[in-house]
């Protein structure tokens, strides 16, 4: 316990007025804990870390941490992060976004950040809903589920973040739920260590705006759902094919090596300077 409080005292801001904005049962704090542990494990200094956040519940996380923090505009966090990383590749740039943030309003920026392989770690906190504005459907709200703007059930198909990131060319794609904290810690550490664009999707329950309208009596039921349905890739492969569709695969989906954009830029610069001399 002392270890945990030490981390809190070291990595969270003292002068920021708590309590935080998150609801009881929300998984966002678990992701924040995982992120702090990962940064601590890697021995990164607080000065070299830039935490860039979008708008929404997830966007409010940055302000509590004692890093360089940039709370940006809705959906555009990756664009700010791209500028920061290109301007100073020595910084460790981490981006926190929500699902509506990253994939609805920010969908274009998301696929392009993945495509250009800019050196940032993107954490998408996927709670399948717009929480802060009061529970409207997002592009990851599952088909047929109820929200404030889909009172008769979501008619549209939802995005699979992992598949989207893969298709856009991301070289590291991983997913966990906030229940699988050890996996979450592991994939965030790996993502932070690697060059280029690294995507981590964290499934996190929003009982206040999503769960209670979709037959989850308590937030614990949502965690139970994760426990039952989220399966590591190897376990999933052992299931009969008919049963796989209903499950959510977790783990590392893509892990490839490639030069990041900022590395390629450094190479270009030295090539041009060699040519000039």
């Amino acid at each position, binding site marked *: 316990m002392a270890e945990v409080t030490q981390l809190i005292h070291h990595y969270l801001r003292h002068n920021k007025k708590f309590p935080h904005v998150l609801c009881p049962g929300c998984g966002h704090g678990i992701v924040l804990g995982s992120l702090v542990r990962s940064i601590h494990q890697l021995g990164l200094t607080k000065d070299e870390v830039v935490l860039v956040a979008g708008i929404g519940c997830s966007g409010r996380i940055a302000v509590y941490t*004692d890093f360089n923090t940039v709370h940006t505009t809705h959906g555009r966090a990756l664009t700010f992060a791209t500028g920061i990383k290109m301007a100073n590749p020595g910084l460790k740039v981490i981006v926190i976004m929500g699902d509506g943030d990253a994939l609805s309003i920010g969908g274009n920026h998301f696929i392009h950040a993945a495509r250009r392989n800019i050196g940032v770690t993107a954490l998408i906190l996927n709670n399948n809903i717009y929480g802060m504005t009061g529970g409207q459907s997002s592009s990851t709200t599952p088909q047929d589920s109820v929200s404030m703007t889909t009172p008769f059930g979501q008619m549209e198909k939802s995005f699979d973040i992992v598949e989207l990131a893969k298709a856009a060319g991301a070289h590291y794609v991983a997913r966990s739920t906030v229940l699988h904290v050890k996996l979450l810690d592991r994939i965030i550490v790996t993502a932070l260590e690697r060059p280029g664009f690294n995507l981590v999707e964290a499934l996190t329950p929003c009982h206040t705006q999503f769960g209670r309208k979709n037959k989850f009596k308590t937030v614990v039921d949502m965690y139970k759902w994760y426990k039952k349905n989220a399966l590591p890739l190897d376990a999933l492969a052992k299931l009969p094919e008919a049963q796989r569709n209903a499950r959510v695969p977790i783990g590392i989906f893509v892990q490839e090596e490639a030069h990041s954009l900022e590395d390629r830029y450094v190479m270009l610069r030295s090539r041009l300077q060699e040519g000039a001399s």
Partner: protein
Amino acid sequence: MPSKVKKPNRRNERAIFALGNEAVVEGALLAGCSFFGGYPITPSTEIAEIMADRLPRLDDGVFIQMEDEIASLGAVIGASLAGRKAMTATSGPGFSLMQEHIGYACMAEVPLVIVNVMRGGPSTGLPTSPAQGDVQQARWGTHGDHPIIVLSASDVHECLEMTVRAFNLAEKYRSPVILLLDEITAHTREKITLPEPGSFEIFTRIKPSMPPEWFVPYEESMRGVPPMPPLGAGYRFHVTGLTHDVHGYPTSRPEEVQNLMQRLFRKIDQFFYDIQFVEETACDDAEILVIAYGCVARSAHLAVVQAREKGLKAGLIKLKTLFPFPRPAMEKLMQHCRVLVVPEMNMGQISREVKRVNNGRAQVRTLNRVDGQIITPGQILKLLQKV
């Protein structure tokens, strides 16, 4: 020993034959710009193209083409926060997309330069024809009350000069600065002489000198412009588009909100004299004053010269600052005149400001053209003779 005596070089090494858009690049590099984020759009594209060639040759230069104009300005803001002098260039439709982040840059006090080469609008409009329809959008385009600096240029040399000034003002006041050009000014090719390095005053943002633990990122001060550390320099603080207190943390306490908003306005308003650039031609005894900017100012200049030849007491005020509208300078010049003529390539955007400043003293005549063609000297002269 060399056999030939080297002839003295009579050619001016620093003279170039350049487009307005090229001069913008020269000005930006002179001012210390090392980051460009942009998206191609006519008639501003040459700026991005030349930057793409020039910046990677610098030790720390970065050019990046983003997926749209929203992203372009986002990247520029990020680069500026990381300590770079950064810019983007666009035209009407892209400028509309940038409005969201212009507001962010105002609120978070991020120095940056946006060049908007105006073309005919609204919407896709006239991509390769000039207009001056974005003047009020530059002032009020982003939501919420905010101060902003908007500059303008009317020839190729001015493109260079005003780009340098745009960077200086952005850095000095921690504010986005918009340089409004038009298709004609941007695509005119003229001979200009590149200034010697050091001949322009270059201003770079003030960094905090106190130890990080004393640093209050948005502290109130006489100047009203807080010092700005680059990300990663040890001054960890919170940057946000939310209304914030002096520590940068979100607030909705009325007194803190009021303090922030008043400081944002005050930091620009109190240095009014430093921001107003106007150029006078034959204004001393003028009874008829033409007030013009951009390419129209060149037509107006010729019209005023010709009017003088015909014995008319005409003068010209060329606006190089559009906002904050250079009221003190204008008021002084307008004291003795009978008629104010405002030619512009829109239905009357700067004439609103002129009428506001004039406050009914002189007669204000507008001359508007919105067909994608420049207002000619002849058109202006005709009006000068009529009034």
